[in-house]
């Protein structure tokens, strides 16, 4: 087992309660997590673990990498704490990073993963999950038995490719002798991982799959069925985790007034704004939770 990790150092030190951020499945809408991070940084709230599922893995990794090892940390930490605190810089960073991963259109040929793999490698190279500055957990689904798989070590590219293996879109991905599917199939919003890893306050950003207005084709029918299943799974898993956790699970569910399609990277600035809006709505409550004195794990004999 790893030794204890240092919590992220935010611009101003947060109270020592372990705050976990969970970013659920939601394709390009997961960019709203950057809006959440903007708000947390602004509030001086340090994040001590990040968990991602499906497309949420991309953002969880970028957030975790923002506090990475020492030689990269100086620049990146300045970027994430000071400059990132203003909306404009977040947008630029997103524009630089994300189009490399998302910048393809429907002609891309959804069944081939060559391009997305190339882009993931370009974005993340050989970096490993265990080397991130903040403990990072990326979830996928075991194709053999449907169980949730949690990657806390190994190559980032492998874990992300496994977690975004949407059935019928991308093939299942093999890591270490097992095949994996999109993380959403085990749990679209893996709050359980945060609970298991000892988080106190859990900030969970989740997204409901959109329902189709007009089911006029086989593909739309399949999407509708998939949305129904995954939304029901999202709700039932969330309800269980909320009851099973000893502290608060704060759901942050951005609402998008515009329809966001799978590859709508042009809408990323708007998505980030909605993420900020949804996060800000919960800040007073989060602040109250964190300011209230409470037992901490630091006191528990480390």
């Amino acid at each position, binding site marked *: 087992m790893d030794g204890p990790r240092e919590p992220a150092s935010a611009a101003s030190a947060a109270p020592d309660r372990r705050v976990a951020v969970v970013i659920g499945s939601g394709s390009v809408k997961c960019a709203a997590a950057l809006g959440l991070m903007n708000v947390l940084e602004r509030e001086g709230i340090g994040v001590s673990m990040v968990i991602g599922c499906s497309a949420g893995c991309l953002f969880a990794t970028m957030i975790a990498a923002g506090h990475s090892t020492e030689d990269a940390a100086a620049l990146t930490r300045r970027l994430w704490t000071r400059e990132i605190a203003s909306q404009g810089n977040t947008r630029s960073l997103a524009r630089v990073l994300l189009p490399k991963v998302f910048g393809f259109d429907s002609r891309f040929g959804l069944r081939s993963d060559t391009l997305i793999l190339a882009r993931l490698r370009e974005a993340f190279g050989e970096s490993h999950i265990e080397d991130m500055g903040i403990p990072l957990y990326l979830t996928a689904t075991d194709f053999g038995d449907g169980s949730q798989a949690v990657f806390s070590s190994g190559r980032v590219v492998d874990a992300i490719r496994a977690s975004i293996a949407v059935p019928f879109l991308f093939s299942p991905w093999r890591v270490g002798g097992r095949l994996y599917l999109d993380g959403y199939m085990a*749990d679209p919003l893996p709050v359980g991982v945060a609970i298991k890893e000892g988080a106190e306050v859990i900030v969970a950003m989740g997204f409901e799959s959109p329902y189709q207005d007009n089911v006029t084709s086989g593909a739309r029918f399949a999407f509708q069925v998939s949305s129904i299943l995954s939304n029901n799974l999202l709700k039932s898993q969330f309800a269980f985790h909320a009851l099973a956790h000893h502290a608060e699970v704060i759901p942050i569910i951005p609402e998008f007034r515009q329809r966001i399609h799978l590859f709508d990277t042009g809408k990323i600035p708007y998505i980030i704004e909605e993420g900020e809006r949804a996060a800000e709505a919960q800040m007073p409550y989060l602040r109250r939770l964190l300011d209230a004195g409470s037992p901490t794990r630091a006191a528990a004999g480390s």
Partner: protein
Amino acid sequence: MDISVNPGGSVTVVTINGSVDGLTADQLLATLDAQVDAGRTHLVADLSGLEYTSSAGLRAVLGTVKRTRSKGGDLRLAAVQPQVFKVLDLAGFTGIMKLYDDVPSAVASFGVQA
């Protein structure tokens, strides 16, 4: 069901043998609560001898998990037998609790001198 408690150093091992059902679960919960009340919040349950549990046992476990965690500790499970594991897994507990193959690993996981 019989329960024995080994207070140890920083980690307390609670050995639960036999079966936990709707009647004996209260006794289990009382024993676990007593540990937490005494400030022993790093708990390991030795389940090598536990052959059966129903949802009543799960309720005792979940209650203790939450109490210990709220005080900065945890309840971790060691040597869970296959049939009991199946029940834990069905209930979703394996996703929110830490399980270990044996007691020493579970004790060591707390990262403190046992």
